[in-house]
C-alpha cells in the first residue's frame, strides 16, 4: 500500500472523529444551516477542479475540470451565502426585544 494512502487514511480517520464529536454538539435547531455550511466546505473540491481545468493537459480534462469548477464554486458561494442568511434569522427572545 502506498505511503500516501496510509497518511491520508490517518487524516481521514482523525478528521472523522473530530467531525463526529463536533457535529454531535450542534443543536438540532441548526441542522439545516449545518448541512448548508458543510456543503459549502465540501465545495473545496473546487481547488482540485481549478488545477485540472488550468493545467492544459488535454481538451477532455479542461472541459471536465471547467464544469467541475462551475458546479463546486456555485456550492461554495451559494452555501456560505444561504447559511449566513439563515443564521441571521435566528434571534433569541432577548435580541428581539432590544
Amino acid at each position, binding site marked *: 500500500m502506498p505511503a500516501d494512502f496510509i497518511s491520508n487514511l490517518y487524516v481521514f480517520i482523525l478528521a472523522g472523529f473530530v467531525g463526529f464529536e463536533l457535529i454531535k*454538539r450542534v443543536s438540532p435547531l441548526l441542522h*439545516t444551516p449545518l448541512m448548508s*455550511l458543510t456543503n459549502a466546505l465540501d465545495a473545496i473540491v473546487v481547488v482540485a477542479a481549478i488545477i485540472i481545468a488550468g493545467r492544459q493537459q488535454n481538451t477532455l480534462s479542461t472541459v471536465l475540470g471547467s464544469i467541475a469548477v462551475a458546479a463546486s464554486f456555485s456550492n461554495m458561494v451559494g452555501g456560505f451565502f444561504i447559511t449566513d442568511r439563515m443564521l441571521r434569522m435566528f434571534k433569541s427572545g432577548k435580541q428581539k426585544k432590544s
Partner: protein
Amino acid sequence: MTALPTEQLLHAAYLVATVLFILAIKWLSSPVSARRGVLAGEIAAALAVGATLFNPEVVAYKWIVVTLLIGAGIGIPLGMVHMTAVPQRTALSHAFGALSAALVGISEFYVGAPHVSRFSMGEIGLEVIIGSLTFTGSLIAAGKLQEILPQRPIVYRGQNFVSLSVLAAALLLAVALVVNPANTALFPIMVAVALVFGVLLVTPIGGADMPTVISLLNSYAGFSAALLGFVLNSKVLVVAGALDGSSGFILSVIMCKAMNRSFTNVMFGAFGQIQASGPAVKEERVVRSAVAEEAAGILAAASKVVIVPGYGMAVAQAQHKVRELYDALSKRGIDVVFAIHPVAGRMPGHMNVLLAEADIPYDKLKDMDDINGDFPQTDVALIIGANDVTNPAARTDKSSPIYGMPILDVDKARTVMVIKRGMSPGFAGIDNPLYYLDRTLMLFGDAKQFVGELVREIAGGASH
C-alpha cells in the same frame, strides 16, 4: 529572508484552511457563535481558492475565470431562495458537489489512462461510483422536492433486487478495471451504471422520507470528496470530505432514530417499502370539529399553548400567520412554545429555519425530548400541518407501519387542535387515531387562512 517556494506557501494556505474548517463547525454548535463559523469557512475557502490560483501547475486562466463567474452566477441566486425551498436547494447542492467530485475523478482517470496503477484505479473507481450515484440521486431528490417529479414513492416488485444488481454491476466493473486498468473501455460503462443506480436508489422514496435521504446523500457527497482527496493526495479535501461525510452520516442516524428505522434499512435504500403497505381498516368514527371562533376562545383562555408545525405549514406558507398567532397569544400572557419533531418537514431542521424566518425567537423552538414532558401541563396543543409525528398509534398499535417511532405526545394535552384540509390520511396513508379522541378538535381549512382567522378572533376578543 529568502522567499519560500510556492509549494510551501500552498501547503501553509491549505493547512490554515483545514484548521478554519474545523473551527467553522465548532462555532456552528450554538446560534450565538454560528455566524463566526460561517466567516471562518469563508476565509478558509478564499484562502484555499486564492492559493490554488498561484499553483504553478495552473497555466491557463481563461476557463477558470469564466467558470468561476458562472459558478458565482448560479450560486448567488441559489443562496437567495425562499426558506420553503431550502430542501430542494440543498439536494441540488449535493448534486453539484457530487458532480464536481465525480468529474475530477473521471478526468484524473483519463489523464493517467491506460497506465493507472491498480491501487489508484481502486480509489478512482470507488470515488467515481459514489460521486456519480450521488449526482443523479440528488437530482431525483431535488426534482421530488420541487414537485417536478411525483413525491409518491414509486415502487414495483423486485425493486430491491434490480437496484442492488445495478449497484453490484457498477462495483464489478470497478473490480474488472482494478484487475486490468488498461481496459479503459469499461470505465464509461461503470460511470453510466453508477448514474443509473443513483436514479434507482431515490425514485422509490417518498417525500416524507426526504429528511433521511437528504442526510444520506449529504454524507455520500462528503465521502466522495474525501475519496477524491485520497486520489489526489490532498489533505484539505480529505478533511473537508470527512467533516461533510460524518455530518451527513450523523444526521441520517438522527433521522433514522426519529423514524424508528434501522440503519441497514437506510443503507439499502428500502425507505419506500414501509409507506407502501395498505391503509388500516376503515370504520366510521366521529370527529369533533370547531370553527375559528370556538377555537380562538379556547386558545385565549389557555395559559400554555404548544404549537406543532409540520410540512403542511410549509406548503401553505403559513409561518408568518403563525408568528402573528404567537404574538397575539403572547400579548395575552399565554406561554407559547413550538414542538419540533426531528423529521418534521423535508430536511433536518427545516421547521426551525422557517419559524426563524418568521421571526420567532429560537428559544421558543423546542426539540421533541425537551417538550414531551410538558404536554400533560399543556392546555392546548395546536397542530399545523403535521400528521405522522403526532400519531399515538406509533406508541400502541403494533400493526401500524409507524409503530415504535418516537412521537410528540400531543394527545396528553388537555385539548388538541388539528388544522387540516380534510379527513384524508397523511402522506404515508396511515390513519391517525388522534383525530377521533374526545379531547381533539378538528379545525378544517387551509392552514394559512385558518390561522389568520384565529388571529383575528383573538385580537378582536382582546379589544373588548
